[in-house]
């Protein structure tokens, strides 16, 4: 079974600074998807960024970027120019490979990292 590990229960960063949230995962598959979800106090789950395992290029979405190290099974999230609105729980998630039933299988989540933004 796949596992996702987020080793930082809480991180704190000054507004406008850069912070990196770590995530490691375990899988025997060579193709899969990885996601970072943000959960603000409203508890809505919001997709931040996604990565396909067979793409070497790291995904970027505005101030959010990932460092995907496939061999190390590491998928860290970097938030640049942190803003107060970035304060939330961040969950790393793994999705099974394509061809295993389309979208049939569920996401496996890590335990989350609580990100605090200091003004």
């Amino acid at each position, binding site marked *: 079974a796949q596992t996702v590990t987020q080793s930082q229960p809480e991180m704190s960063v000054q507004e406008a600074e850069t912070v990196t949230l770590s995530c490691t995962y375990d899988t025997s598959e060579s193709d899969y*998807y990885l996601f970072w979800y943000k959960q603000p106090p409203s508890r809505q*789950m919001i997709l931040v960024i*996604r990565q396909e395992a067979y793409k070497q290029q790291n995904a970027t979405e505005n101030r959010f970027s990932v460092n995907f190290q496939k061999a190390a099974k590491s998928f860290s999230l970097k938030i640049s120019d942190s803003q107060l609105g970035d304060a939330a729980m961040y969950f790393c*998630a793994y999705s099974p490979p394509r061809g295993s039933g389309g979208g049939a299988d*569920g996401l496996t989540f890590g335990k*989350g990292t609580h990100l605090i933004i200091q003004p």
Partner: protein
Amino acid sequence: EPEVTQTPSHQVTQMGQEVILRCVPISNHLYFYWYRQILGQKVEFLVSFYNNEISEKSEIFDDQFSVERPDGSNFTLKIRSTKLEDSAMYFCASSGNTRFYGYTFGSGTRLTVV
């Protein structure tokens, strides 16, 4: 932007009662899911549903739980006889034919069993 809609946002029920949580997935999505998040813990997969049947379920999804897509738009999760430990946030999600675009989550139903 298309949304996944969940109702109610908060439900309080007595232990032993049946509850039905409702979801309207994104209209052109094909795959539907329920997840659970006990307060302060990680989000856990419960069940996936495709082509009008369950595709996969976790060990959490025991005989107390059932899912249904009764009318082609709604997707429901029923808990037959609620227990205190069923208190949690329940999220519905849907996805299209490719998982790369991720799963769109609803805003959740907070279930409190008293």
